[in-house]
């Protein structure tokens, strides 16, 4: 009887630790709402989600790659490249290409660019067996640089309404982008948890040998994962262009570490096979909440980084504690 009881206690503790990120998020929201004047309002809550959209969407890409047992440092640069190129192709600014292409043409081009970056990453990881960290460090450096080189790196503004409306449009006073992020999370969580593709990503991240022994085409799977990551990142970048109503060379700089923070806080293991988008979503919201709280209280922005730094170590420690409850 005792063993059953003990077993149940362990399960409860494990369930608690598995959902700790949501508990932390709720704790923060309640604390900020009570303690900070001006934090508690529906508008601010919507604002928090609205400002988590880019990090949130990039985190989806990163989560897929991490669960497969790899790493993608190029998500930020792919997004930046996508934002810069799509604006350059479409904008009427004198610093733009002058082509003034249709919005959808710009979209197709940057999605293709995102897929190409993914293809590049996958090629070197799969075919030449180079560590994904190094391959994507390389693309992290050169992908943004290529965009700046092509466009000259000038700030561009002035987008056609067809491009801007993606950011402007609201449903029930809530920006479309918020719904878009929700939809992407639901879609990609479903794919991860319920489709063959998603299931095989977990198997690969858990034990590559087992994946091969049971006939999973590991190479093809990795190509798919990296290309998907590139496409999602490019999509996020395209949205960034729409919101900024233009583009600058330094766009999205620093997003990579925010993304990695959100993903790690969200419970995704860097060693592969572990994590879910439900947790990552909370991770992205936690970061955005902290930004919002610090904004409202107008304390030094460097505090943000202090808190973010500590959040990572707390999240990772909790993960370590979780493993002790075998």
């Amino acid at each position, binding site marked *: 009887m005792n063993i059953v009881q003990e077993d149940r206690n362990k399960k409860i503790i494990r369930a608690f630790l598995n959902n700790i990120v949501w508990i932390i998020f709720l704790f923060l929201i309640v604390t900020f709402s009570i303690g900070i004047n001006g934090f508690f309002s529906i508008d601010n809550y919507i604002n928090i989600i609205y400002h988590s959209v880019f990090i949130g969407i990039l985190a989806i890409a990163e989560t897929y790659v991490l669960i497969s047992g790899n790493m993608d440092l190029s998500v930020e640069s792919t997004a930046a490249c996508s934002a810069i190129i799509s604006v350059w192709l479409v904008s009427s600014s004198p610093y733009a290409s002058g082509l003034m292409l249709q919005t959808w043409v710009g979209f197709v081009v940057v999605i293709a660019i995102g897929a190409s970056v993914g293809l590049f990453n996958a090629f070197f990881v799969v075919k030449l067996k180079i560590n994904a960290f190094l391959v994507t460090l390389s693309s992290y450096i050169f992908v943004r640089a290529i965009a700046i080189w092509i466009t000259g790196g000038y700030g561009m503004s002035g987008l056609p309404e067809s491009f801007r409306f993606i950011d402007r449009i609201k449903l029930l006073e809530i920006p479309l982008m918020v719904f878009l992020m929700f939809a992407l999370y639901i879609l990609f969580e479903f794919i991860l948890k319920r489709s063959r593709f998603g299931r095989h990503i977990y*198997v690969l991240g858990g*034990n590559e040998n087992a994946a091969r*022994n*049971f006939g999973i085409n590991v190479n093809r799977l990795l190509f798919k994962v990296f290309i998907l990551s590139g496409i999602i990142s490019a999509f996020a970048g395209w949205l960034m262009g729409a919101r900024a109503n233009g583009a600058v060379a330094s766009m999205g700089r620093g997003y990579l570490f925010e993304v990695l923070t959100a993903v790690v806080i969200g419970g995704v293991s860097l060693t592969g*096979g572990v994590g879910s988008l439900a947790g990552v979503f909370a991770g992205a919201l936690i970061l955005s909440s902290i930004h919002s709280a610090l904004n409202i209280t107008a304390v030094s922005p460097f505090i943000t980084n202090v808190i973010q730094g500590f959040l990572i170590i707390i999240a990772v420690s909790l993960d370590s504690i979780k493993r002790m409850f075998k």
Partner: protein
Amino acid sequence: MTTDDKKVFLKIDDVSKYFGSVTALSNVSFDVYENEIVGLVGDNGAGKSTLIKIISGNFPPDSGKIYFQDGIIRFSNPSDARRAGIETVYQDLSICDNLDAPSNLFIGREIYKKVLGLEILNMAEMKKKTKEIISEVGIKIPSIDEKVQYLSGGQRQAISLGRFIAWGKKLILLDEPTAALGVRETRKVLDLIKRTKEERKEASIILISHNLQQVFEIVDRIVVLGHGKVIGIRRTKETNTDEIVSLITGAIFVNQGKKGK
């Protein structure tokens, strides 16, 4: 019981395998008859696991042929072998710590249901089947919803063995299936292997084990490998532990792979 009147089920014919300059297998030949258990023994590095991995389609031989039932087999990956009815229990168990028991049991052959034309993972069905399979293995798993990392060595082994119980219809390759088990669990697994032979008349089993006592208890014939070569083949009834040990350790080199065929 003699094996002479039985049909050859699997024929390993002059198989060699090299890894760079290392010779893993050199001109290995032996037969496995229908409904027979063959023990594959030999020191570490003798080539046992390499041979298993060639039969199971993990990699092709550099030379030689393998006949299975009536045709030559040339598998390009383990799925081909599985489809042909060859089921392997790998020494490393091929278990994913991050997944639960049903997910592990069904790696690469998950059950899906069609919903609006899309294939959706059918966890309920996989759980149901897992319970049946694990109960047949006879090693209890407290909760099949738990990630496998929380299970004991024996319970993890049970999942790995469950795969051959569920799908090992023709040829079953067992690479050290009792390595992680305690005394009582080992007993159960040995009984399970014997029972499998009795119940599945159309199936044959190749067992790799370091435990000669086990080998003598359940196998019909013993193939001794050493440095990638067949050192000797013996009928279990016509030999004893001493002779097999001497073959393994290289004390005697007689009847190079001929006797007992």
